[in-house]
């Protein structure tokens, strides 16, 4: 049973603005039958580009219908310029939250709106996210779209990427490619951090700063790599320069985890925290 908010349920059981508009000024269509959800958004505008009427039709689950209904209520009375500022998070917030696995429903709402605005402006649907190379063949998701969601929502795992844009939710054969996109994006971020770090004069860290930095480094640079191999790592304790960690998942039985400990975990922590750290494994 999904844990839907009262507002999601209300918009699902009593969807607002269902139907068609005759001669709409703008139409946005996203999704498909094969994907399992689709949304058609129709807008009627006045001379000042204010949305005077809006209707939708949705094929999809409870939260897809609720997200579409919420979107129509949100854009009504707004100008196109104002409506264009609505994000998927705004839709989810309007509904008092969506389950994590259902975030792609609000993404679909935002995309339909973008498509409708582009349609009105007479632009060829200006969605760089639709161009690029198809990574997830099951749901037809491109690398650009995946990268967009990763940056927009600071996603670090394949599972999160699936929640936001469905990529990787089918046969899973694209998981290595998704992981590569995640790695590439955060590698660039990391380089930025390194440049920043190089600019800063090295200062002695307080214990709290050190622990925080260790934790951040594990989250950003170590955990995603281990998780992609089915493993995980927990920070157990920090005592002076001794960092105690324990491995989880497939790392526990992995014969090369000792090597990983020194070559990855310790190396990364020395790189980003201080170069005197010694990493030790404690039994989990």
């Amino acid at each position, binding site marked *: 049973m*999904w844990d839907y908010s009262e507002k999601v349920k209300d918009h*699902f*059981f009593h*969807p607002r603005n*269902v139907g068609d508009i005759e001669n709409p000024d703008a139409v946005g*269509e996203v999704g498909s*039958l*094969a994907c*399992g*959800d*689709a*949304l*058609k958004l129709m807008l009627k505008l006045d001379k000042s580009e204010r949305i005077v009427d809006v209707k939708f*039709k*949705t*094929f*999809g*689950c*409870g939260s*897809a*219908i609720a997200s579409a209904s919420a979107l129509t209520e949100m854009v009504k009375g707004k100008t196109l310029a104002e409506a264009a500022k609505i994000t998927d998070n705004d839709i989810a917030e309007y509904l008092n939250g969506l389950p994590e*696995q*259902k975030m792609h429903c609000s993404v679909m709402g935002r995309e339909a709106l973008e498509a409708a605005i582009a349609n009105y402006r007479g632009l060829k649907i200006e969605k760089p996210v639709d161009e690029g190379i198809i990574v997830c063949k099951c*749901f037809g998701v491109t690398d650009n779209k995946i990268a967009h969601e990763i940056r927009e929502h600071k996603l670090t795992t394949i599972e999160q990427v*699936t929640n936001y844009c*469905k990529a990787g*939710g*089918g*046969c899973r054969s694209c998981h290595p490619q998704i992981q590569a996109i995640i790695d590439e994006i955060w590698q660039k971020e990391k380089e930025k951090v390194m440049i920043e770090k190089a600019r800063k004069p090295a200062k002695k860290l307080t214990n709290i700063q050190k622990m925080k930095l260790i934790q951040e480094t594990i989250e950003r640079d170590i955990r995603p790599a281990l998780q992609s191999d089915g493993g995980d790592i927990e920070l157990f304790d920090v005592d002076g320069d001794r960092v105690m960690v324990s491995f989880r998942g497939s790392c526990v039985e992995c014969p090369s985890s000792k090597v990983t400990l020194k070559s990855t975990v310790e190396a990364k922590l020395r790189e980003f925290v201080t170069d005197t750290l010694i990493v030790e494994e404690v039994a989990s």
Partner: protein
Amino acid sequence: MKVVYTDNNATTMVAPEVVEAMLPYFREYYGNPSSMHTFGGQVAKKIDTARQQVAELIGANPEEIVFTSCGTESDNAAIWGILRANPHKRHIVTSRVEHPAVYNLCKYLAQSGYHVTELGVDSNGMLNLNELADAVREDTAIVSIMYANNETGVIFPIEEIGSIVKQKGSILHTDAVQAVGKIPLDLSKSTIDLLTLSGHKLHAPKGVGALFVRKGITFSPFIIGGHQEKNRRGGTENVPSIIGLGKACELAKKFMSEENTRVKQLRDKLENEMLKRAPDPRVNGHRTQRLPNTTNLSFEFVEGEAILLLLNEKGICASSGSACTSGSLEPSHVLRAMGVPFTAVHGSIRLSLSRYNTMDDVDYIIEHLPPILRRLREISPYGRETKVKEQTERISARA
């Protein structure tokens, strides 16, 4: 609120007689069946009775029954038990439509260095037996094929499968969780070597199952511990639940003919009326080689989770093979293996009855489900036009 429970392939109501039979083993007879004193020892005798009751339902010898904690444990115990007893054999044959207890275990074994052959099914959900015969090799340790499918109710010709497996000198395990109690089984005249059954699918409580291990089959225990279950499953017996499972099996035997007459008639009426009244329906799975209680229906252009939520509002409990209800984005692996079109997989609903369902229940669903489907069709941007359009596009693309 009125509750119409038609999700019996997920779990069943514990029969009142079963609850009554169990209660003394919480309150009075709490002894350990392994104890030397009479207080505990008398409980061991009652476990023997339960073992007898389970054996009678499936035509087995009582000593061939091992009590476990659930169907998943029985499946794991069967497959691991045979693999460990035959370490030189590294090949497993299974099907693409197994329950996750077998399906995911075989996936895990494939990653751990075993060779796994997964047999596909046709659009009716049936296996190709020639393919099976080709798949079984000299180093095949075990063939694990379900008796009846949990999603569609399709029954596999398990005895034909068994004789092929025997000819090839391998061992047959069958997950019969959905079959036991619904259709008659007689293991005294069977080619099955190991069989899984689960309590909560036949009106016993959750947390108890059994594994039939044919006499003469070399089998290593999955849970290693004490001498319980003749060294085939360690751990102090879950006494009340085992007593409950025994009682439930006795009742299942008694109600077997009702299951295949009255319950089947209810299912058939429900299915036929839905085919008549619902927009764009189809039945998934073989219409006759099927459990008497299950119907898996697809309604095109609507999505399963939305149907379930609206049914839930009317107090009707059902399941769906739609992606949104699976906890992942992947729709039912069973329906996809059958080649059911995506449009129909997303809008699939499983209704599974039991002897506790009535004609009123069926009439209630027949009254409420079609309006729900029509309501979702009104919201849906797709309809028959889409289908025609898609087909034309496909044809023109081909030309």
